[in-house]
């Protein structure tokens, strides 16, 4: 058994310390050590995006990173998207547009979409499709996901992130 390393990082705004083996992926560290099971495992090869999280503002597949590489980083997972019980506009729009069926891909899509809207608050359909092309959804055909992201972008432009009107 390989020796464990102490890792310190900021996860969803909190400073956390955890012990992980060098071979454990960040996804495994989040799910099995920190008990944040929102990020999902669909492939472990970077092909499905279900494990997407944001690290220092960038969307990454947490299955492609080792836990030890998270040292000193700032991580946001789907669990950190809503603030004190108020859903993020993307979360609300996904619900309103029925953008999830089974929901296993949803955490990854939400993080990828957040990454897009942080960079580009006024995306068109092509921008959205391009930004989400690394995330697979097998249930929806993407139609309602793309619509929700476009609608959330419009909502955020009008109301801003924190003030998005509660339904």
């Amino acid at each position, binding site marked *: 058994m390989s020796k464990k390393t102490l890792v310190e990082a900021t996860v969803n705004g909190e400073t956390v310390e955890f012990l992980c083996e060098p071979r454990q992926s960040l996804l495994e560290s989040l799910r099995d050590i920190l008990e944040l099971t929102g990020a999902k495992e*669909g492939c472990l090869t970077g092909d*499905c995006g279900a494990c997407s999280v944001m690290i220092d503002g960038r969307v990454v597949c947490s299955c492609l990173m080792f836990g030890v590489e998270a040292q000193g980083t700032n991580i946001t997972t789907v669990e950190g998207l809503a603030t004190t019980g108020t859903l993020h506009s993307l979360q609300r729009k996904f619900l309103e547009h*029925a953008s999830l*069926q089974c929901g296993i891909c949803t955490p990854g899509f939400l993080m990828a979409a957040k990454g897009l809207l942080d960079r580009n608050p006024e995306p068109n359909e092509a921008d959205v499709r391009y930004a989400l092309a690394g995330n697979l959804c097998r249930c929806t055909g993407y139609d309602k996901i793309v619509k929700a992201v476009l609608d959330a972008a419009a909502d955020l432009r009008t109301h801003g992130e924190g003030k998005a009107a509660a339904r």
Partner: protein
Amino acid sequence: MAEATTNGKYKVIGTRPIRHDGADKVTGRAKYGADYTFPGMLHGKVLRSPHAHAIIKSINFDKALKLPGVKAIVTSKDLPSVANKLEQAGEMAINPHHLSMNILAHDRVLYDGHAIAAVAAINGHIAEEAVRLIEVEYEVLPPVMTVDVAMKPGATILHKDLRNQEDGDKQTNVAQHYQFKRGDVAAGFKAADYVVEREFKTAMVHQGYIEPHNAVGIYSSDGTATIYCSTQGAFEVRSFSAQVLGMPVGKIRVVPAEIGGGFGGKTTVYLEPLSVLLSKKTGAPVKLVMSRAEVLRASGPTSGSQIKVKMGATKDGKLVAAEIWMAYEAGAFPGSPVGAGAMCIITPYKVENFLIDAYDVVVNRPKTAAYRAPGATNAAFASETVIDELAEKCGIDPIDFRIKNGVKEGDAQTVGPPFKRIGFIQTCEAIKNSPHYKSKLTGKNRGRGVASGFWFNAGMNSSATVNIHADGTASVVTGSPDIGGSRASMAMITAEVLGLSANDVRPVTADTDSIGHTDVTGGSRVTFATGMAVYEAAQDAVKQMIERASKVWEKKPDEVEFRDGKFFAKGNGVPPMSIKDLAPRFSRTGGPITGRASVNGRGVGPGFATTCVDVEVDPETGKVQILRCTIAQDAGKAIHPSYVEGQMQGGTAQGLGWGLNEEYFYDEKGILRNVGLLDYRMPTCLDLPMIETCVVEEANPGHPLGVRGVGEVSIVPPPAALANAIYRAVGVRMLETPMSPPKVLKAVLKHGGSAQHSAAAD
């Protein structure tokens, strides 16, 4: 997004409330099977065959067992021997012996990825190391990969004991021959002015759910077991696991976790019995989760197939005869959906003379499982392209050709009995009148194709209870795992009957000890059959509450009426009572109110869909770009229109992927070469346009709300619609799926890009 109801009769049905399990799913809180942990839990991994076909001479796991952290290893020696004949397990018939051999190979491995042994260790990494330390000695046999090879005289035999009804005591790979016929086929073809005969191939494809299979098994010292898993059917997991493990059904409880997609692929068991077996051996909870490669190699994709279709029509466009030969890969054990395919292949059309021969053939590939309208998509790829060619020969618009020959109420189905009310023609008309079909498609190498599809839909058993709470709200409990938003529909049906808002009803999916038997979430049956049980359970609750109101008012029950969520006493001017007013009086008038119902869903209403797709073909690369896509489907009644559209769009996307890109790619040794999602190429966001939907509502007379079920038929038309569109774009008839760039390019080059009516085969 709540909007005025589309049907004046209803207040809740037809609206679009937020799904009840939604908040948990967008915040990462929802618990899927792989998210469960228990104190002291061990992790399991499975050793899988590196050969497509081999005899297992020996298994040595001494080294593996010595690895620190390894707790137990099981092989088929740990499984009881079970009956080698079809047995009823719930609604489905299974062969327990075959199932057992698929869970852990007995003396031979029959496909690349076939499970041989399972290890439990303190973590997954150690279990994986242990798997690599197990030594297996094989005698490798030649693999049999396709139906034509498997059916050849003298072919290598997979199962020495396999026999079919026609070949007497001869060893064979053909497990079953189905035949359907009507009229006089020879006379039919004689009357035809045009006859088209084509031979098709479709590749094996996977359902592609994003969540891999998972299970946590907990065996208790009292001889009972609990299984947590993501499944479409908790009751099937219970009965199948009981069969394989030789345990009484009553000793197993299955708790269905949230499920990350299934599409038919999660209606059987793989890991569940292993988790119990390992838990029994170690005394600890054991979790197993498949990797993506394991999902592709060793779960249940759907059959590749070979299909020959010959059809004839008169000059004025009347179909007069059909002769069909079809053979489907069952995988390593009998049971492809070829029978269903045969019963679907020409069902949308009135054909007086037909002969259909269908063969279920075992090959060295994983045992196939259900995939959305199992068998129908392969079949429609063949028949719907031939229909397109006949329409062209007759000089009739392909939609009009379908309307002319399409089945209506009273017409006979392939299997005999006449259709009750159906909406096939309406789906054709909806496409004909759609903005899409009415638009002009211009530009080079562009084409538009249409195709239709049929699927039976299923009834089967469902149970429901409706509990009325002290504050006048309600909960509805069913046994149907919610795979695409069905809980919202169950709450809406309850709310409609009780006169509540959808928000005032909490829907719950219960485990196998907490609700009556409920068959799989599959066959498009949940909104139909479980919805029927929910409807009746809610009415049962109303009936009981009417009695209670009559007690409060000291009247006879028939002097009390319930409408719009209120109880009214006939006669004198007593003010009406709401459920909320009545609920605090339950305990003084006879106790809590629980409405119950269980149904054996009769009155199934078949589903039809018609799809229109525009493509552009790049003649330099063979790449097909989808420009626009519209689907019309008969829902009977759309309870929650957003999730009905979602089923239509999702099935369409799967059908488009099946048509253009997806395939199991085996090498000459029978080893699967594309075991990841980069190489098993499913459609991404960039590959698809918006998918326009026309929801047809031709009420199913067999359901109190007119529901048919919408989960499956949308996948059926797309591959054929694509083939027909490619033909219109570049003049080649594609006869094989996937119509991937190399195949399309080859066809275009062969065709030279000019003559019409040419066809392309590989």
